[in-house]
């Protein structure tokens, strides 16, 4: 579990822990990582932790990960809207965390994964079409989607599946600043969706909850002349 302290990763990990799975948690903050590990151990999981900044030394990390059955890639930052649009260094740091680091990690990990294993990466509906409200965050997820699609094709026949998980609005610390609408799902709900997609052996793009696929189809179908005037 890369980015194991993310709320969505924790929700999925709880289900796996209660099934008694072995989990390797990777994250940057040792105290938060330990809090998550203690929770998962109490729930029945066998848990190890690796404190590692996923934006750095991906090769060093991959050496310590071994060959897991499932890789959940969950690191990501949403970023502060006003800074995102004005500060190029900040915009680049979002691209690094959400796109460049996952690309580096998966490029190194993919050849090491045994047949039957699964890469499940958290993308977002925000990657489907660029919107002013999400800015470079959407761009990072669009890039990730494209990379995952290519990887899925490349790994066909190798027995390694590539899941692109695309949640809509999820009520987590990442979205704390957004006003809550009925479109929001809970992290627990999205976590269940992730585990179900992995269990079902899917090798595709999965919207969570599923009806976001319909919403995004409509959003993508809007002519640019209309879309550019929208405020959502």
């Amino acid at each position, binding site marked *: 579990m890369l980015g194991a302290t993310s709320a969505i990763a924790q929700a999925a990990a709880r289900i796996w822990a209660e099934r008694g799975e072995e989990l390797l948690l990777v994250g940057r*903050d040792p*105290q938060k990582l330990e*809090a998550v590990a*203690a929770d998962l151990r109490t729930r029945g999981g066998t848990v190890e932790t690796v404190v590692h900044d996923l934006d750095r030394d991906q090769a060093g990390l991959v050496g310590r990960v071994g060959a897991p059955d499932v890789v959940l890639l969950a690191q990501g930052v949403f970023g502060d809207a006003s800074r995102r649009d004005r500060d190029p260094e900040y915009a680049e740091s979002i691209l690094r965390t959400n796109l460049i680091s996952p690309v580096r990690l998966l490029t190194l990990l993919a050849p090491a994964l045994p047949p039957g294993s699964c890469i499940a990466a958290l993308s977002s509906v925000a990657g489907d079409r660029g919107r002013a409200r999400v800015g470079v965050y959407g761009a990072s997820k669009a890039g990730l989607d494209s990379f995952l699609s290519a990887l899925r094709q490349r790994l066909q026949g190798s027995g390694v599946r590539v899941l692109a998980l695309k949640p809509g609005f999820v009520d987590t610390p990442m979205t*704390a600043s957004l006003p809550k609408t009925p479109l929001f799902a809970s992290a627990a709900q999205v976590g269940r969706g992730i585990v179900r997609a992995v269990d079902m052996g899917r090798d595709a793009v999965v919207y969570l909850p599923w009806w976001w696929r319909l919403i995004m189809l409509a959003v993508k179908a809007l002519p640019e002349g209309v879309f550019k005037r929208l405020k959502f």
Partner: protein
Amino acid sequence: MTESWGRYPQARHAAEVRLNWRAGLTLPVVGPMLPYGQGRSYGDSCLNDGGKLLRTAGLDRFISFDAESGSLRCEAGVTLGEILRLLVPRGFFVPVVPGTKHVSVGGAIANDIHGKNHHRAGSFGAHVRKLELLRSDGEAQELGPDDQLFQATVGGLGLTGLITWAEIALRRIPVAAVRMEAIPFAGMDEFLSLSEESDAEFEYTVAWVDVLSRLQRGVFFRGDHAAGAIHAPRGQAAVPLDVPAVNALTVRVFNAAYYAAQKLAGRSRLQHWDPFFFPLDGVAHWNRLYGRRGLLQFQCVVPTPEALRALLSEAPPSPLTVLKRFGPARSPGMLSFPRPGFTFALDLPNRGEETFAQLARLEALAMEAGGAIYPAKDARMSAETFARSFPRLGEFSAHLDPAFSSSFWRRVHR
């Protein structure tokens, strides 16, 4: 908008701070602030109009569980339902559970809640071995039952600081079933003798009464954890929107139907723990049945059967009138509600002045009898009633955190 379970009164909060991690947890610099868990208190004790709420739902991690001793340590936002879901299959139960499993551990401590086994187990606080309290000066203190600040925090309505984690002693149970008996009765004498007889033999006892029936008929429930194969109930109903469905007619119909159904279901049966302890959790958002104006709940404890009789004769019709005899256990908190005597609870739709007048009469009866009113269920008691209900109020006040307050506290404390 953030509400309490009764949805009355409404409050506007200056900010709602979502707490997610114990590591590096800092409280807002400016109060007044109040911890808010699941919002299952009925009145205004979980609200802080004009102030800030510290939302603890994100502090929902287990920390450790020792299956030898049954000792569970978890963050304050973990719900009792989550504990039960995880640990009932391993043969453990929460020692004291209220009428809903959707309450947080922090809330259970702050209200020193009680359950159907009060006569055996006492209140929730009696099973808390340790807790950590974060004060607004930034100091985190680990407290045990012998500490004064612990005794102020148990039942302390969230006013002494933020509980970040707690250690609870769970109890061992054989399996997930409850052998329960539902015994129809008529009149207070029958209730009293059933209480007397059952409290000696059964872990869990509670009674439902239909105050509309001339005989004051009711159903006495008693049960014990038992061996036996039993399946969890499937599916859940929900009330999707405000439907003001509780009125004199529907209460009459509901009460008659409920009584008949319990009689029909048979006296003794094996039941899954979930519907036995938490029948109302089967209908999500049932509070919406009381309409947009919400409901007022009233719960008091009185020392004598005579006082209980007086309350029942004054009780307005309610679909949920509940009686229980509290045992002799001494509650650990300075502001703990449970004490020896009889507790009486009912729900009323909020019809403004009429409802408030009915509740004022019940309040007066409880006070005449030397009883107490339960803050977690209250939206209207007077400051005088609060002071008379809790004789250790002065002692408690010394432990208040200066940056913590609530709508309830500002209403009842002068």
